């Protein structure tokens, strides 16, 4: 009796392995075809719909977030296999702290578990040579979560093949305010350090003053340099699952020219077909944009 289930599971295991190999092969063929067109360099995900998914399946909330995590791992693998170097995910917004304390705690526990797991030998970090950044107001996190995040950033600092940016305790308006403050402080330090200029010629006084004034004043590049997300280029595509079409305070500065996609699928339901569809949309729009750039 005991042997029959074992035999079935062996045969079942064999079939499922064969099926996985076929799927993997088909996926690689598909990726080769897609790669013949332009590919995005940076993709950003707003992972919305975990709780609705759990409700839909009649399960408790936590299971939605766990299913969401599996979906995330699959999407990361597809992105990196396709050759997309940068992926940013909106893991936890500063706004989310206003949820019920039990939900916040359970999310933080899950985040801590998954952050620590990134350092394991078999993790996706080692598989893909991934550098990980945690972007956000990390001071708002518990000491444990912050320490784990800092450990991962340190441990992956030398990796360079692919990059994962995890926005945690993040909102874009907070990121912009921090960058503005840093720009104000560093410009005023520059002014203090430069001292007073003397000009010999009256005419060049006026021109010289303008250039000097210009240098003293904050430029776009000053704000950009001080953005936490300056470690990556701007996203080419933002995908928000669950059919909602808003940014919810995610990468506002960086997504001015990003293409936005909102598949109706809840985050745990997100799959390869949604990624392919978004990239095909990007490729269609890309050729139009290149034409426009040449005209402009």
């Amino acid at each position, binding site marked *: 009796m005991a042997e029959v289930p074992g035999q079935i599971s062996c045969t079942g295991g064999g079939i499922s392995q064969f099926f996985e190999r076929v799927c993997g092969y088909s996926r690689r063929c598909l990726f080769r075809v897609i790669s013949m067109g332009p590919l995005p360099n940076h993709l950003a995900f707003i992972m919305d719909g975990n709780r609705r998914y759990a409700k839909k399946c009649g399960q408790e909330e936590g299971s939605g977030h766990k299913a969401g995590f599996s979906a995330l791992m699959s999407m990361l693998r597809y992105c990196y296999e396709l050759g997309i170097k940068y992926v940013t995910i909106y893991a936890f917004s500063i706004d989310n702290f206003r949820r019920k304390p039990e939900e916040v705690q359970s999310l933080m526990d899950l985040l801590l578990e998954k952050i620590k797991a990134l350092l394991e030998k078999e993790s996706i970090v080692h598989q893909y040579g991934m550098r990980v950044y945690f972007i956000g107001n990390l001071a708002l996190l518990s000491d444990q979560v912050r320490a784990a995040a800092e450990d991962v950033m340190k441990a992956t600092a030398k990796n360079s093949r692919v990059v994962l940016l995890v926005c945690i305790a993040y909102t874009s308006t907070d990121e912009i305010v921090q960058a503005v403050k840093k720009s104000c402080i560093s410009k005023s330090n520059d002014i203090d350090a430069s001292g007073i200029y003397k000009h010999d010629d009256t005419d060049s006084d006026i021109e010289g003053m303008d250039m000097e004034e210009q240098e003293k004043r904050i430029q776009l590049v000053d704000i950009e340099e001080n953005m936490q997300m300056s470690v990556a280029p701007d996203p080419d595509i933002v995908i928000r699952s669950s059919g909602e079409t808003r940014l919810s305070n995610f990468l506002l500065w960086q*997504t001015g020219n990003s293409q936005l996609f909102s598949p109706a699928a809840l985050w745990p339901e997100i799959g390869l077909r949604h990624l392919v569809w978004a990239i095909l949309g990007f490729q269609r729009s890309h050729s139009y944009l290149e034409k426009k750039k040449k005209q402009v």
Partner: protein
Amino acid sequence: MPNHVAIILDGNRRWAKKRGLGALDGHESGGRRVIELAMDFFATGINIVSLFAFSTENWGRPEDEVNYLMAMFEKNFKAEISSFQRYKVKISVIGSRVNIPESLLHSIQEAEEATKSYTERQLLMAIDYSGRFDILQACKSLAEKAKNGVIQVEDINEKIMEKELMTNCSEFPNPDLLIRTSGEQRISNFFLWQSAYTELYFPNVLWPDYDKAEYMKALTWYQQRNRRFGRRV
């Protein structure tokens, strides 16, 4: 109902190309719709309508197109002052103003002066505007205030930042709904800070074809949205 609807008027040139016409004809056709549609929006109870008329990036377009657009804006401001007064719509133009021709600047100032006392409805025209430029000018203004001791840098927060943005001339600076016509699904550097929680709607209609029926579709769509602002409903 949304308090503030923002519109990116995209698709004039493609509309013209489809009909074998020049880009300027597309702009002319698109331009005629703008004020009409804005008034339709106000009639349904919306307080503020913002229009992305000209981006800082548009200066790179062909000179004749840029000149045409500047002349068209000037003509519309002059021609529509009486409508704005009739419908009690306050006109506010946001953007750089440094590169705008003198004559257009003059008609902007006239329109703003003639309508400054109205409080219930406002038309925000973004001319030579971009979201990044807006944030940068707010930052420069805050740096100046910090230098003069009016504020401390450590005290700068989101509320203070918002008061420095060009939309500070409005009671509802952040749009509830942003419509971008022509099917392109991007914000193109329009309101960046202000769109943090804005519902984004991308109808596949070119701007000169955008009519009242399309606008009603957008409003119906908006009313079905479930806005949570990060919390749970």
